[in-house]
């Protein structure tokens, strides 16, 4: 679905934002793109959608070269940016104007998602809504476009606590084997139990890209006693509730993935973790 090969990108000549980056993303999955600020997560999403052009390397998005911005590709992509555009349109008119550009747009679905987000009045003007409300409208619209590729940059920023749960439910129900969702985020807790593949960027490179089932097969997550000494421990965090540990899974026992712990473990013990995969 998305194939990024040896891509290099920079906004100016001095500093490279992405360096020789390669990544393959499959359909039917929700990919979590994690990384610290300024690592190039949003830029990668822009490159995939054709908003920015790579300086070197190649990108294949849905079988198209994204820099051509072919309408056949664009009608199968929906990009939810972190900062939303200022449009002086009502929700109703937004649907009237933009829905015809997406052949698989489903108006009933859109209304259903809006209802789930408690947005009843489609006559509300988008520029008069709060950031969170506006985000809900765009999330609902994006899911209702039924595009093959959905790109979301920090989708839960600005959403209140109940809306984050609604967002998870909606996304989980909207993704099927033909669709691919890439979520770039810092709010890993918001996406716990939603993401089924994790990609970590560090120092402008992809350092980790694995599906959840592979991660839980190779790694074991646990809360251990401070006196407990185990050779399989790769990374641990001391908290009030004990030691949160990432261990090598030697027994094949299943454990619940802690994305934040895994992310910190990758940043601290990158070599040890990468070696296991």
């Amino acid at each position, binding site marked *: 679905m998305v194939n990024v090969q040896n891509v290099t990108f920079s906004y100016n000549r001095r500093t490279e934002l992405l360096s020789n980056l390669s990544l393959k993303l499959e359909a039917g999955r929700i990919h979590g793109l994690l990384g610290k600020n300024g690592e190039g997560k949003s830029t990668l999403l822009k490159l995939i959608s054709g*908003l920015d052009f790579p300086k070197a390397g190649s990108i294949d998005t849905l079988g198209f070269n994204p820099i051509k911005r072919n*309408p056949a590709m*664009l009608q199968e992509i929906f*990009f939810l*940016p972190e*900062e939303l555009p200022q449009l002086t349109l009502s929700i109703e008119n937004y649907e009237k104007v*933009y829905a015809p*550009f997406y052949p698989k747009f489903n108006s009933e679905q859109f209304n259903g998602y809006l209802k789930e987000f408690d947005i009843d009045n489609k006559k509300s003007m988008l520029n008069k809504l709060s950031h969170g409300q506006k985000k809900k409208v765009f999330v609902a619209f994006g899911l209702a476009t039924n595009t093959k590729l959905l790109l979301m940059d920090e989708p839960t920023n600005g959403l209140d606590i109940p809306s984050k749960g609604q967002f998870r439910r909606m996304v989980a129900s909207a993704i099927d084997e033909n669709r691919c969702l890439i979520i770039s985020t810092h709010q890993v807790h918001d996406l716990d139990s939603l993401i089924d593949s994790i990609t970590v960027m560090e120092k402008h490179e992809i350092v980790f890209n694995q599906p959840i089932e592979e991660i839980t097969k190779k790694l074991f997550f646990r809360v251990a006693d401070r006196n407990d000494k185990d050779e399989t421990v790769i990374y641990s965090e001391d908290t009030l509730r004990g030691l949160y540990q990432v261990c090598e899974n030697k027994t094949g026992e299943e454990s619940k993935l802690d994305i934040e712990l895994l992310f910190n473990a990758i940043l601290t013990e990158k070599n040890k973790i990468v070696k296991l995969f």
Partner: protein
Amino acid sequence: MNTTLDINRLGLLLKRYFIENKQRELTFWGITTVVFTLMHLAGPQEKSISVEMFLYISGFIFAARTFKIFNYTPGGMHYLLIPATHFEKLTTAVLLSTFYYFAMILITYTIGTTLGTTIGNFFFESNNPIVFTLFYSHADIYSNSHSLLNKFIFFAEIQSVFILGSIYFKGNVIGKTWLTMTALGIIIAIIQISLMKILWGDMHFAETFNYQTGHLLGSNIKVLVYLLIPFFWVVSYFRLKEKQV
């Protein structure tokens, strides 16, 4: 799927413009009609120049706003991701800022002139005829004909420059486009003078630049001016194609 020009998508882009700008359009053309009405209250004096100035000045302000959306990154991202080709997006911009704008000026001018003259006749108890001077052809001091078609071509020329300016520059498009045009004009003038010096030597220009050569140069420049319109559109197209946000 047609990947160059699809009439359906072009229609959707035009519909998008009118729905998004409905309020602004209604207000602006309402005010324009009132301005033309007021201008014609006192009778059918020569108003063509004022109307032409209004057309050109308001026109380039409108054209300079064509790709204003790129001044704000989320807006630019949203625009570039609309599933339509760059050609369709540019065609929409040209249709709106050149053909639609000119047509709307003619319509509001016709309404304004009719209303202004009729109201003027009623209140001032006069009997002035309704005269649409903008539609008439007149000659300037160099005997160049100023027909409605010529006025449109000159208008299209200005609009094409400012469409390019609006996609090329970020912020203060009008100022930057004027400055660039002035700089280019000076460079072209220097090249022209240098060429004339090479061709005719160091003789004084008054002796060499007579009526015939002036007329010959004038005709060639006119052709060049006509060719510049599609040239600026093509440059705008490539600029839009390579636009990154």
